[in-house]
């Protein structure tokens, strides 16, 4: 359909991510597109509002590199390891500068994306009761059911990122993307966005996607650019393609704690490299022990109805 949207990461980021944008690089543990975050750092974007349920190490790197002025999130940490120290320094000591934060619970963040994707002015959830969260986030408002029960709920406003970047195992040149394994809120974040970049492990023929339409998570009509970038999620993972590099997450604790080490890491692994290809070359054989065994889904028959 139409002209191809296939682009190099550098061009996709240069063309679609602008200073001051609200950017969501989503993916819950799975399919977090580190390569896109690194390219944004490399291109020295500034004043971004970064949105993510779980900022994870990628936002610690981006915020440590100074691309953001604000963070919208629901869980701030290095999963299973500890803290995001670059983020904490900015929140706790305004070091090197303050970071504005806007926080929700996981369900609140998910529903903000659902509202954004659905063009709804608000989304009701049963949460936040007797919690201090609404007291520090006026965007979370109480509302009563108009029906007999009069149940009280809280509502959250839509979140509409200027740009959402999601990674998928495979996508077509038009951006039809298929994902298996954890889905997070990739679909909702993509539909909610003004502009969408889909990064994929494999660029595939339309026929591959049309073989199994129920596996399509994001349709090309909401996608502006498609970047084929294998291993773009390291140290996050892509189900069936490579494992999570838990060692990296564990090592990050030390790097993140020390501003000098963080700066050195950014220089060595981002600024001094041209692209993710260089990053992978530098990683060397690290992927060898991250390769999973095979575990196939089996296939189903859609039937030929002519």
């Amino acid at each position, binding site marked *: 359909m139409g002209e191809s949207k296939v682009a190099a990461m550098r061009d996709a980021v240069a063309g679609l991510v602008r200073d001051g944008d609200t950017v969501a690089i989503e993916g819950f543990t799975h399919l977090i597109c580190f390569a896109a975050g690194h390219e944004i750092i490399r291109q020295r974007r500034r004043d971004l509002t970064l949105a993510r349920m779980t900022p994870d190490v990628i936002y610690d790197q981006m915020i440590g590199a100074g691309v953001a002025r604000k963070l919208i999130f629901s869980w701030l940490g290095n999963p299973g390891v500890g803290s995001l120290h670059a983020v904490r320094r900015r929140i706790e000591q305004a070091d090197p500068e303050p970071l504005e934060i806007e926080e929700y619970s996981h369900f609140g963040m998910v529903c903000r994306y659902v509202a954004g*994707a*659905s063009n709804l002015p608000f989304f009701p959830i049963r949460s936040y009761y007797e919690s201090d969260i609404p007291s520090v986030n006026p965007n979370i408002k109480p509302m009563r059911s108009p029906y007999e029960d009069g149940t009280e709920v809280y509502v959250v406003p839509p979140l509409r990122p200027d740009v959402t970047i999601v990674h998928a195992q495979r996508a077509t040149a038009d951006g039809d993307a298929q994902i298996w394994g954890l889905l997070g809120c990739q679909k909702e974040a993509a539909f909610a966005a003004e502009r969408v970049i889909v990064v994929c492990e494999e660029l595939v023929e339309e026929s591959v996607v049309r073989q199994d*339409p129920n596996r399509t998570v994001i349709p090309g*009509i909401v996608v502006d650019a498609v970047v084929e970038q294998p291993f773009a999620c390291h140290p996050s993972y892509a189900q069936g393609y490579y494992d999570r590099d838990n060692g990296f997450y564990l090592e990050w604790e030390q790097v993140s704690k020390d501003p000098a080490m963080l700066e050195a890491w950014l220089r060595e692994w981002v600024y001094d490299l041209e692209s993710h290809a260089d990053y992978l070359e530098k990683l060397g054989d690290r992927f060898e022990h991250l390769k999973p065994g095979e575990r196939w889904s089996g296939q189903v028959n859609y039937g030929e109805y002519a």
Partner: protein
Amino acid sequence: MNMNGYSKNEMMISASSRTLAGERVCFVGVGLPNIVCNLAQRTVAPDLQLVYEAGVFGARPARLPLSIGDPTLVSGSTAVTSMFELFAFYLQAGLIDAAFLGGAQIDRFGNLNTTVIGDYASPKVRLPGSGGACEIAIHARKILVIMRQAQRSFVEELHFRTSPGHSGDPEHDRARGWSGSGPTSVVTDLGTYGFDEETGEMTLLTLHPDVTLDQVRENMGWEPKVSPDLGETPPPTAEELRLIREELDPQGVASS
């Protein structure tokens, strides 16, 4: 089949297909609209993506589906989605460029009745109801109507307003803030209509070959607004007829 060698439905299909020129994402109904969209995809709108409310995006039907949920719409499509996502993420979000609606009654502003003839509580005829029509009318950027014309269907006063059209007050319409801009075209067995920019009123643009203005008047519940430069609808081309008869509706299910 008239003396020109094409049927009323074929004329309607051809005329409607041209209203899709250049469109990208179209919400398809069954029957005529299904043929119209597939014809447009092969003629004036090669990039047209067919979306079915059943939850299919980018369908490539290998046969003419009788129902809107035919299995041929699924096999080989780009995406299948839950109906919640289809209505919320695609339609309500404003991703649908054009959609076809019809009904038992339409008024001069393109409001449609698909609910009841007579009183709602004790109807003379109970019609299907809204289905997705009410939200389609509100969110699809362009609403294209295909209906046969008659006194009882083109009425001054609807018995029930299922799906909103223009209000008659363009100020009001602009202030609605809907992603849809309401009905933009009506194709009947007698002619084609647009809607007046100022008044939002249905306006006769072209008469089909051999149709007279009197015939149009006889088959309408109000005095039709007629475009100053009223023209004749270009008849179906030989290629359009070939596509309809050989590829899209070989059994002539909908084209007779």
